[in-house]
Each structure stands twice: as structure tokens, then as C-alpha cells.
């Protein structure tokens, strides 16, 4: 049953050192505010997973909180590489990072299998692809009717999934609209789900087949307006593209990165996100 909590309390109540954790969002609705709160609370040895780790994974990894990353595309979308991820993989800074690398199809199917309560996902994939040689979690099965060899990967079952969504109603049912990514699957696959939302409303006022997570599938809901910035929340504010471009320069240098994190994350509060998106709301 969803509790309405501050993001501070929701993170403290639901995350532990060593947990596996997904911060999902596919360009749209990336849970920046939740990730910053996790960084402030200083967790260690996390196994993080996401199809498209971007800036927040650069931040988590650069701050030394991550033991292992499961992913399928680690880039700064529209800009280039993730420089903190590269520094960890190439130079073990601040420490070594274990990676389990998949394709998007594999990750999407693995979350789907997690939501579906299955031990593994089965799909047609990795044909001729070398990832199958370097990732022991890519196996195969033979279909019992046609004899076709299909790929199999373990279901993803994070201890905690964080997502950002547009709104919740007062019972705690949560609506996601627009580009949905794998957020529904990541929530249903998780042991505990923490969702930041732009607002709480009396009535979700949407389509009968819209993507809604019932309140009893959610551990905690936190109202954090702007919580997806610099990504966007369809209907609330646009993507802050310039921030993605600027991140490339910040993350390029270890000292610059640490100084930025100190000022904008460690010494900041979740409340700053509302201010950050103020200028972006008009155009959304």
C-alpha cells in the first residue's frame, strides 16, 4: 500500500546498502531528484540497473556508490559518452565497476519477465552478437516445437525501483503518460517501488487504458515537482537540453565533477527541482 512520504523518508525506509536498484526512465521522466537523495544518503555497494544509464548513473558511479551496473546503452543522450562511467571502467576511478552488459531487447524482456514473475526472459536475440561471449548471464534454450534456439536472460528483480511519474490520486494510484519506457515493468518487477510525482490530484482524469500503477503495487509516493529535471515530464515541462550538453564538460574532470556534486547535490535539497523547471513550464 502506497504511503505518501517525503523523498528523504522514502529513500531511508526502502533502500539499504548493497541493494539492487533501478532508476528507470527512457529519456522521459528520469528520476533525478530520487537519485540525488540516494546520493545524499550515501549508500554503498549498490547494484544499479537501467536500460539507458545516463547522467544520474554517471553521478552515482562517480560518487563511488556502485559496485555493479547492469545496462544496455550507457550514453549521454544526444551528446556522447558518459565520462564518469568511462573513468570507472577504464581507470577504476573511484574504484572498479563490474558491468553486466545486455542489448535493449534483453533488458526490456528481462524487466518484463520480472514483472511477470518468471525466472527468465526468452526472446530471439543476440544472434551473432559478441556480448553473448562476455556475459555469462546470456544463455539459450531450444524451443520445444520448432527446435529454434532462442536467447534467455535472467529476469530483473530489483530490490527497489525508483521512477518519476506525472501524478498520483489521493489513494496513491499513479499515472504515467507519453513515452512509457519500461517503468511499469520496473515497478512491478521490484520488491519495493518508490515513485516521485509532479502532483497529487483528486482524479487522474485520463483514458481507461492509460498506464496506471494501482496504489497497492507501490511502497511510497513522494511529491517532488520538477523531479525529472533536466529530463522532462510530458504535460509539465520540457527537456532541458542545454543541461545535457553542459554535463559533458562537468563530468570530463574529476575535480570539477566533485565540486559540482558537492554544490548541487550534497548541499542541495529535493525542493530545488521545482525552481529548476520553473522556466521550462511555460513551453510544455
Amino acid at each position, binding site marked *: 500500500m502506497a504511503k505518501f512520504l517525503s523523498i528523504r523518508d522514502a529513500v531511508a525506509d526502502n533502500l539499504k546498502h548493497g541493494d539492487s536498484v533501478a532508476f528507470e526512465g527512457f529519456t522521459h521522466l528520469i528520476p533525478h531528484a530520487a537519485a540525488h537523495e540516494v546520493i545524499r544518503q550515501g549508500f554503498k555497494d549498490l547494484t544499479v540497473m537501467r536500460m539507458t544509464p545516463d547522467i544520474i548513473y554517471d553521478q552515482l558511479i562517480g560518487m563511488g556508490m556502485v559496485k555493479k551496473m547492469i545496462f544496455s546503452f550507457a550514453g549521454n543522450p544526444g551528446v556522447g559518452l558518459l565520462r564518469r562511467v568511462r573513468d570507472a571502467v577504464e581507470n577504476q576511478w573511484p574504484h572498479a565497476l563490474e558491468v553486466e552488459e545486455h542489448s*535493449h531487447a534483453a533488458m526490456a524482456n528481462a524487466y518484463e519477465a520480472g514483472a511477470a514473475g518468471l525466472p527468465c526472459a526468452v526472446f530471439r536475440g543476440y544472434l551473432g*552478437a559478441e556480448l553473448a561471449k562476455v556475459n555469462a548471464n546470456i544463455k539459450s534454450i531450444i524451443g520445444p516445437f520448432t527446435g529454434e534456439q532462442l536467447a534467455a536472460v535472467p529476469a530483473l528483480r530489483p530490490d527497489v525501483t525508483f521512477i518519476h511519474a506525472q501524478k498520483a490520486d489521493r489513494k496513491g494510484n499513479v499515472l504515467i503518460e507519453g513515452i512509457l519506457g519500461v517503468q511499469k515493468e520496473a515497478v512491478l518487477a521490484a520488491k519495493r517501488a518508490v515513485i516521485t510525482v509532479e502532483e497529487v490530484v483528486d482524479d487522474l482524469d485520463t483514458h481507461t487504458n492509460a498506464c496506471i500503477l494501482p496504489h497497492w503495487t507501490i511502497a511510497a509516493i513522494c511529491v517532488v515537482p520538477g523531479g525529472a529535471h533536466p529530463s522532462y515530464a510530458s504535460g509539465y515541462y520540457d527537456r532541458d537540453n542545454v543541461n545535457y550538453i553542459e554535463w559533458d564538460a562537468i563530468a570530463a574532470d574529476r575535480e570539477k565533477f566533485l565540486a559540482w556534486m558537492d554544490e548541487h547535490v550534497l548541499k542541495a535539497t529535493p525542493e530545488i527541482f521545482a525552481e529548476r523547471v520553473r522556466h521550462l513550464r511555460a513551453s510544455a
Partner: protein
Amino acid sequence: MSNDFTPDEMMTIAASRALKNDDVCFVGIGAPSAACNVARLTHAPEITLIYESGTIGTAPSVLPLSIGDGELCETAVSTVAVPEMFRYWLQGGRVTIGFLGAAQLDRFGNINTTVIGDYDRPKIRLPGGGGAPEIASSSGEIYITMKQTLRGMVEKIDFVTSFGHGTGGDDRQKLGMTTLGPTLLITDLAVWRPDPVTKEFTVVSMHPGVTKENVQATCGWTVKFADDVEVTPAPSVLELKTLRDLKARTKAAHAAPSTSGANA
């Protein structure tokens, strides 16, 4: 016709010409979404563009910075969840053209976007495959576009992110694939097609002003040229205007300065 164009513009426009009105085109990360949208805005207004973020039948007025920009969804016929995208739409065999870019490419259309150097001790850790491994195997055929460089077009790629024709011949069929794989490579200098038997990319057309020496000088393998290498038609005035207008709209839309006081 116009003579005032860059190699990059020629590449994009040559790629756009390969797309047809009834194509269903899967635009993966790093792929030339410019080419797809120029096609849509010129000779293929009904083309279906699919981005892996789940947007089906998009018609953006500016190029997305990422594959999940809001306008892709706002202009789409339908936006589905990402697992459905990969299961029903890509794996389901509904995509006629998968459009891929490459950090490294070999003569058989095998692509590396994973690492430069050894996988476990990489010199450069690239973003990874994303959707590409299954785009490469499940799309009806694959178009590749990239700028020619000796670092990019290599004798042997460091990692096979996405399988093209393997070592050539019927390597795809041996792996059980029924799709055609790479059928077209468009660079900033030339148009290449695989040899029907060996599957080695062969230059069939060079862009205006380009010589065989130019092509060889920027390619890490010994280039095969078709017996009759044609000259790629220069961009038409309409093509060039369409591309430049699109880029101008895109630049204006993405360059809006942030006043949020803190980035990321």
C-alpha cells in the same frame, strides 16, 4: 541540382533517397534520424518512422536530441511501452529497414559500438549496443551510414556488437537468420552495396567530386569498386533546403539556454 553542399549533407541526402513511402524504419540510437526525416519531408511522406522509445509513426518538426524526445510522442500514431516495442514491433518482423550507425565497421557490415580495445580492459568504453544487436537481426534489411575514417572503417573490428554478414557468404543463414542484413552503406564519400555472393561491401557510386583514391585513403581495408562506379546525383535544391531547414529548426529548438541555475 546544387553544387554548394557538404559531404555530410550529401551523405544524409543519399541515405534519405534509399527510403520508400511504404517502409517501416526503425531509427536506433546513433542512426541518422536526419536521413529518415528528410525522406519523410520529401519523397516519402507516408514512411513510418519508429524510435525505440516506443513511438510509432512519428513526424517530428525538429530532429530529436535523444530517441525519447517529447515531440516524437506528440506526433506519433501510437506510443507503446519499450518491451512491446522490442517484442511486437521489432522481433515481430514488422520493420522493413533498420538504420544503424557505427563506431567501427568492417567490410562485411559487422558493427562495433561497444569498446575500442579489449572488452575487459577497454581503451575507450563506448555506450554499447542499445537496440542494435536485435535491430541488426530482426529488421528486413539494414542500412548503415557513417563518415569514412581509418579508425572507423577497419580491417577487423574490436568487438562485434551487431552482426552484419560475419565473414561473408551465407554466414547469416548459418546462424538461422532469415533477414537480409546490411544491404546498403552510405558514407560521406560513396554508396556501397554488398557483393551478392561474398557480401563484401563494394562501392557502387561515388559522390560528386570524390575519387577512388579519396575513398581508399579513408578506409582501412582494400576497397572493392564495382565495374561501373556511378556518380551519386548531387542534392536537389529541394533536398538541400529540406535538410538545412530541418537542421536550422533543430538548432534553434535545442539551443535555448537553460536558466535553471543548475544543470543535471
